């Protein structure tokens, strides 16, 4: 398989707070990687560095072998999409226009093409009937599905998810996770920060455990969940899976 993302020696600090302390990570095209780890371990910051919402302080991130700092922001962001914990829909726009705006402004697609594509992805996430609704009229799970459709409309090669179900009521978690599962079947490369261990175990090709700004363990989900090698992974899993 060909490598799509290569993170080398990544460092990031906020003032004195060393948040990412040397991360190397290579991700292949089509891979679904779940990132787990205690809160504050730098998972969000890692994702945010990958699409330059945060500027790394050291190391490099290569996308198809090219340093992301050298890629024009608009094309980088179109190719590496992001889904946020808090959905972050554009509150002034309907579900449909949330999906249309980026296509027209950034990809310079025609209105007709943008709408067609938006409808296609809204249908895929089961939100087509709500296309004219404003975000304020949608439930959390529905908002997140629109947010996923919005990201997909940009034809990303990689989609980053930062705890996509953490802000949801329990009964809405599954509707979002099942949408993400269908994307895996479509062959999209995804990096998913999650606390849903069952999902990580079943859906991921690979699980990365992070602690204190480092990748502590990285491997096959079944192996990592059933026989974690590192004591810190063991402790984390024991704590999390007990609940």
């Amino acid at each position, binding site marked *: 398989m060909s490598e799509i993302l290569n993170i080398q020696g990544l460092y990031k600090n906020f003032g004195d707070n060393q948040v990412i302390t040397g991360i190397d990570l290579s991700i292949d095209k089509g891979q679904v990687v779940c990132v787990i780890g205690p809160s504050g371990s730098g998972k969000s910051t890692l994702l945010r560095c990958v699409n330059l*919402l945060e500027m790394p302080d050291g190391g490099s991130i290569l996308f198809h072998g090219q340093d992301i700092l050298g890629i024009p922001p608009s094309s980088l*962001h179109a190719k590496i999409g992001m889904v946020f914990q808090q959905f972050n829909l554009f509150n002034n726009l309907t579900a449909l226009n949330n999906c249309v*705006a*980026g296509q027209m402004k950034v990809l310079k697609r025609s209105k007709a093409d943008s709408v067609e594509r938006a409808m296609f992805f809204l249908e895929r996430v089961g939100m087509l009937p709500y296309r004219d609704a404003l975000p304020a009229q949608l439930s959390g799970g529905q908002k997140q599905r629109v*947010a996923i459709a*919005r990201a997909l409309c940009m034809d990303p090669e990689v989609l980053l998810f930062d705890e996509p179900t953490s802000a949801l009521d329990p009964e809405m978690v599954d509707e979002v996770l099942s949408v993400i599962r269908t994307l895996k079947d479509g062959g999209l490369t995804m990096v998913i920060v999650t606390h849903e261990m069952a999902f990580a175990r079943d859906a991921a090709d690979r699980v990365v455990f992070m602690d204190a700004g480092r990748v502590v363990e990285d491997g096959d989900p079944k192996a990592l969940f059933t026989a974690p090698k590192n004591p810190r992974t063991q402790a984390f899993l024991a704590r999390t899976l007990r609940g």
Partner: protein
Amino acid sequence: MPTTFFGWIAFLLEKYWLLFLSGAINTLLIAVVGTVCGFIIGLMVAIVRTITLRRGASRVKRFGLQAARGFLSAYIEIFRGTPMIVQAMVVYYGASQYLGINIPALTAAFLVVSVNTGAYMAEIVRGGILSIDKGQTEAAIAVGMSHWQRMTTVILPQAIRNILPSVANEFVVNIKDSSVLNVISVTEVFFQSKSAAGTYFRYFEVFFITAVIYFILTFTFTRLLRLLEKKLSGASSYTVYGSQSSYAAEIEVKKE
């Protein structure tokens, strides 16, 4: 000659109604043009002032942005920190003495009120922008939108809605404060009143009428603008009047 207060009022109205009317129209015109242009200036200034550069940005960009920021801060400070009456004098006489341009008084009025209002609007708009949660900006960045695209499609439409009460308040302030433009002989309602009062030396009666005219203008427009705001924010909210002097202090409460 009339002998009573009401006699004088009737007499002056009859004789000078056209003067009062043309003055009121000019006052309104100045307030409308000044507020609209000032709002546009405020939007542009706020858009520039909220640009953030990536750390990798070139020296030239960095320097250009710093220079623009410095210039805009100076503009805001100076125009908020000096009275409009003085700004009017400086612009009007400065243009004629040093640039050799005789600006028509009304044009000077539009210019001064617009630029003055722009300085206040810039801060109001900036507040509006800051009131929109950062998540939406990040989401807009994450789909690849530029600063300008983020502002025009996502942030400003929401920010403007939030600051509408303050913008309306600036309009009402401009109706009243355009009176200072009489120093450069702009024929707004205050200037016209002075002319009317001078002939018969009936300052009290004339300015009583002037006060009523100003009040009718401000009262009518505050009601109209409030109606407009209600329409825009829908029936899902109601308003608590947080201050007796400033509509900016209105607190909007969303119904559950």
